[in-house]
């Protein structure tokens, strides 16, 4: 399994992180060495093993259907990169 430049570009697109070509090469090398290390798992036969998705030894707790939060618009928008007292603002989206 090798992660070539094309794959690096594809996952960079999926993860919304732009990568320039110089860095893509280095990244591809890094990822390859990491995946070589990860491939060790192939030694194990896990066909019959149930995956472990949750480690917490408890049941999913259920919340009552009650409104508890107040209008905190000011707090919510306080840290937003563009000033607007009502909305979050992003570059124009054309669909």
């Amino acid at each position, binding site marked *: 399994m090798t992660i070539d430049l094309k794959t690096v570009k594809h*996952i960079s697109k999926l993860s919304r992180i732009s990568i320039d070509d110089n860095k893509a090469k280095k*990244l591809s090398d890094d990822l390859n060495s990491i995946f070589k290390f990860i491939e060790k798992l192939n030694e194990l036969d896990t066909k019959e093993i149930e995956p472990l998705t949750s480690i917490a*030894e408890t049941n999913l*707790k259920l919340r009552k259907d009650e409104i508890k939060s107040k209008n905190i618009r000011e707090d919510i928008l306080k840290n937003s990169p563009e000033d607007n007292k009502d909305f979050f603002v992003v570059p124009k989206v054309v669909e």
Partner: protein
Amino acid sequence: MSNITDLKLFDLVEKIKKKDLSSKEVTEAFIQRSQKSKKLNTYITENFEDALKNAKKFDDKPDFNKKLPGIPLAVKDLFCTNNIRTTAGSKILENFIPTYESTVTQNILNEGGIIIGKLNCDEFAMGSSNETSYFGNVQNPISENLVPGGSSGGSSSSLAAKLTPATIGTDTGGSIRQPASFTGTVGLKPTYGSCSRYGIVAFASSLDQAGPMTQDVKDCALLFQVMSSYDNKDSTSVEFNRGNYLKDLNDNIKGKKIGIPKQYRVDGMPKEIDELWDKGIKIIESNGGEIVEISLPNTNYALPAYYIVAPAEASSNLARYDGVKYGFRSKGINLIDMYEKTRSEGFGDEVKRRIMIGTYVLSSGYYDAYYLKAQKVRRLIKNDFDEAYKKVDAILTPSTPSSAFKIGEKTNDPVSMYLNDIFTVPINLAGLPAISIPAGHDNKGYPLGLQIIGKAFNEQNILNIAYSIEKNINFKNNINDWWIN
């Protein structure tokens, strides 16, 4: 004043309760020492002014029933703190000021604690040397240009340098225990579900746990008592009887069965670590514990499994840092361009690397081969521990395969960096509690730690075993204040 900062947490609490010291005196002492210690670069954000105000407030109206009466504490900058900048060591949160408080820091505040600052850490807790922080390297007070471990490197360094009487960290694969081991301090990673994750910047949700970092085991029990609570704001928080870890702390380990896993004797491990391990075994035996050889056959697969599970969860947890709601934003010609530039410029290389790994292992066509496989291996690792705990009460291992290394030594080789966590990672995968205590030094004089792993929710047991070893091991940190100016 320097003698105040030499006091341990427990003693400071006693002295404040007896009114031998005021909160203001204690807070000032740690702040002053912190101000002289900028060379260590442990603070990302100082909260000194506020802290002094709060200390005065406490002294004006003291409540000595609190567990941390007017005690100043600096905390890892992964805990969201109301009105105090919280960065997670990242440029992407460089200017983020939460309007809310994490449950763990709230518990500390509720018990009278005072937050004096936010401590450096690897970016989003992804690292083992604190070298991935956007806010720069942290120096280990043990020796110049030595890493303090990671990701809670600012915490371990501050604690060892006595800039804070105790601190808190988070541990996803060893981020409390490894830095504790590298700085000659005590660090506890509690059972998954013991401390609430609410308000802690998430790295890998199924592995993250907050825990105390202290000078000794007694302090650890005290701080853990404060931190751990059931929280209905965290669906993975577990409701159980938490007991009184400090009151029930004792060094009687007679009849306890302690397992020694043969798989932890790895090639190339310095002989000092082997010797230290044997020393720990002897102490346990002489204190009346019984040593049992055990097997954790899948240990070698823990690290590769971890480097699938943790990045996978991280790739999704870090998707919210997109420049829309808070934090850094880079200008883009359209929405996608804005996302890609923001995340490319806002995240450091290691974080990007892990997001990429995580994205890849979850992507269509690879999910079964990587993510699902890793979850299955995780089951095998948990089964190993379940088997072992049929025979033993706890497990003793070294904390790390080596002592602290030089800054820059491993930054170009991610895999060798990852190998640092080989002894700590399996515990996170199995959700178990483990404590690292300082136990000796290597030939360079750098501290080394021993790790005691417990059964789920049986922190008391490993605290007691650690306490018993600590009393007999006579560890002393050699720190000469080289950085003070």
